[in-house]
């Protein structure tokens, strides 16, 4: 079970959160074509290593948190709110 340090609520158990997926994808502009939106909705990397992702604190502050999680060790690098600028783990760049 992951333990996520919510910037609002402190260290909380994974069961309070809902995983919302890849935080590196961004919604295309409104005038983008269907292919861009298909990529936004469906296309995901499945990395072995660091992953930038959204976690929704459903049973807490109801805020979307962004964090970097290592998919092998489950180490969490940094946690921030939706508008924070997180420093990626060493060697990682966000898309």
């Amino acid at each position: 079970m992951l333990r996520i340090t919510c910037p609002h609520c402190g260290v909380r158990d994974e069961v309070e959160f809902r995983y919302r997926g890849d935080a590196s994808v961004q919604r295309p502009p409104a005038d983008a074509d269907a292919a861009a939106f298909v990529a936004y909705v469906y296309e995901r990397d499945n990395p072995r290593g660091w992953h930038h992702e959204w976690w929704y604190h459903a049973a807490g502050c109801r805020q979307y948190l962004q964090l970097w999680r290592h998919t092998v060790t489950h180490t969490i690098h940094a946690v921030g709110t939706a508008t924070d600028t997180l420093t990626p783990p060493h060697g990682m760049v966000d898309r």
Partner: protein
Amino acid sequence: MSGPRRITTGLLTDASRPVEFSFDGRRVRGLHGDTVASALLADGARLVGRSFKYHRPRGIVTAGHEEPCALVDLQSADGPAPNRPATIVEIADGLEVVSQNRWPSLSFDLMAVNGLFAPLFSAGFYYKTFMWPGKAWERLFEPAIRRAAGLGVLDRAERGQQTTQPHTEEPVHDHTDVLVIGSGAAGLAAARRLAGSGVRVMLLERDVVAGGGTLLDPRWAAWRTAALEDIATDARLRVLTRTQVIGAYDHGVFAAVETLPPSAQGGGAAASPRERLRVIRTRRVLLATGANERWIACSGNDRPGVMQAGAALAYLRRYGVAVAERPVLFTNNDWAYESAVALHEAGVRIAAIVDPRPASAAAARATAVGITVHHGAMVTAIEGRREVRTVQVARSDGQALTTIQTDGVLLSGGHQPESALATQAGGSLQWREDLAAFAAVLPDRLGATAGAVAGSFGLAAATRDGEAAASRIAAVLGSTRAPDTRARSGTSPTDAPPADPETSPLLALWEVPGRGKAFVDLQHDVTVEDIRQAHREGYTHIEHAKRYSTHGMATDQGRIGGLLGAAVLAAARGQTLPEVGLPTPRPYIHPTTFGALAGGEVGAHLRPVRKFPAHASHVALDATFVPAGLWLRPLVYSQTPGWEPVLRESRAVREAVGVGDASSLGKVDVQGPDAARFLDYIYANRFSTLAVGKARYGIMLREDGCLLDDGTTSRLGERHFLLTTTTANHTAVLEHLEFQSQVVHPEWDVQLTDVTDQWAQFSIAGPRARDLLQRVMPGQDLSNTAVPFMAALPAHIAGVRGRLFRISFSGELAYEVAVPTDRADEVWNALLEAGRPLGVLPYGVDALNTLRTEKGHVTTAELDGNTTAYDLGFERMLKADGDYVGRVLARRPGLTSSTRRQLVGLRPIRKDAKLVAGAILVDPAAPKVNIGDVTSCTPSVLVEGWVGLGLLAGGRGRIGSRLLAVSPLHGESTEVEIITPHWFDPENARVRA
């Protein structure tokens, strides 16, 4: 003296307190402190069970949690418990113990004939034999296998009772800085080092007392006492015994099951002891879980009377029991000699020690006290049917040496560190050639391993290892306070740790060649030949060989023979053990009852219940309730089954007036300068043009273009909206709104507040709805001019300040009133009271479903996650301009095609035929092609017979045609006419009346 084999005083048993229990109906006397196994051994018992596959006679193999053979069923006044290891069950007066897996009796087991057909039951037997035909599996093979192969038996009636008589406590959540698992020499030394250092410590021990291996060596009593005294001085250091850690999880989370001592359970016989799940969160873990003594694969190594050498020492020290009168020790290492020497000193005649090594330090000590040691020799066969009678000894080159008469064989193939938790926590295994074992290592960020689990064998070595690991962890955690001055080990002359005896290296020995079955897994009856066969048939990976042969998949999880099987596989592969490895152990590492995991969350306490604010009033009206998510919704205000009460409520709405409770609708308050803009983005239709004081029906899409939810949203002010969701999608919609607001458009100033629980909402529907409402709102102008269709206004209802909406789901003139939750009962009752002269009836979810199905309104039955706006006929609601969620992908050709399943109305041709929700729609000309299904259906109060809604391929183009609604499950086939879903009052004249 409570059993002929009780030869001395045990550390745990109380000779002044005899206890009597029964084993297979026979009365057995033991002592307070005995386990079932120690009492049976004291009584001279050998045969205590039958094996899983071959039904071979089996005895007691261990003295602890890893017991593979002596599993028993327990019976007591509070119910039965199956599959309990006799080696850890404490006896109590009146406890009934029943052996397992034998029929009709333990000494005469008819199923033992399986042993004669052993070639049939080889590795992969289940996969190969019961392949076909499919039906035979369900009716013939599975019941037969279950009857023949099962271990313990759960009593059905008792399982039902457990909801009312739970055997478990509420789970406890613990937080600590350091979790020390295991209280042997390493664990105790580590905890003692941390005592007084300022960090919070939990020390867990699964045994009934702390001490681990120090309990088996009297020289360590003084040290143990001193260590426990030091530990007790620190109030921040908690020691829990009888607590088995069952799993290690990410981020320092561990699960453990604590068994309450008999004294906490009334002291009487309890088959199922009270258990408490503990979820422990720790900053660091210190694993001092010790090691398990492993088996040697030699012929007949499963005979009753063959036991781990260390177990024999445990029975002597802990319970004062000699497990045999003239035992043979077969060992490849020096540690096991301690058992033989201790038994010898207690007066037991050791028949011989058989050791493949040419010489050793321990052998010299044994010889010095007069014990015969056969060097360079191996036990090639253990013989005797229901108990051990003789062993055959040969020289290492195979030359027969001697036959020894004996009544017990103590086996020791070395020790394998108890590494399961280390592996789960994220540690690694390192092969140690000197120990012929895998030692466990944890990275610093997780904690440390210490003692035997880390490969430091010997009690004194373990204390040094434990102290060092504790110091490292304390430093990492930044403990600044100096340890308590008394909390130092080895400084006082009376409690200095005794030195470890000199030991010679072991000789790796996995398998002794010979005839007859040599087992590597005693519980699942897996032999060395099964492992080789798995390899021959291509299952060469350790994980594949494990599953194919079931080796290591029994309740002991390969603790005794796991490494043996891996070694046999390695030999077959021509590789080394480190190349083959061990299979990954998963939680739970020890058998765990469902009851312990469930805690108090059983029956009515399984999930929380959300009750409507006016729940008490619905109960008073004799409502039948239906669960909807966590909600309990009034289904119908009657206890009479069938449609009659539902249709009576529906008719009241169509002909007079009904009052319904819609409080479970999701309600989200949306405020802010950008609220209108946000809703334009959330909904596919437009809300920025909505006038203050008005409501509008809206549909929202997911980004993939399918419908997410629908509902009415009202504009209460220029920057203030109240959004409603369906009951089912409330949580999902709220999460969606937050995502769009926080992540996609954080620049918009919008505040979302879930007010579902703050407002009760009632609908008043029917031609007399206005009359009713006027009686509770005497001063209010309710005319069509003042309160037109889709009005949303502040109002006082029965004197309570709230909101009035003119919206309709039933197709009738209808209003909804919202009042604060704490006034719900009052307003609900006022509405019913006011409506009494008008013929009002309360109506439930079933009647609401009848009314909306007739009107052609959709619910989550139709909004099934795959439907689009085009499918439901909402395509004209899609905004032509402006961005909104799902806009681009909703226009994909595949989502707008007229061949997709579209919403239609359904009516059986025969008026006495009914519809079944979920029935499949087929064309009689092509009856095997599913072209749609019935999503909603009800008897009608508007027309004769049933009506329904469905999703039908190209549905709008099929209106007027006839299809079949078939439900093979119900054996029904009904001819239906496809009609428009909006056949009732399509002009909305009644709604606008």
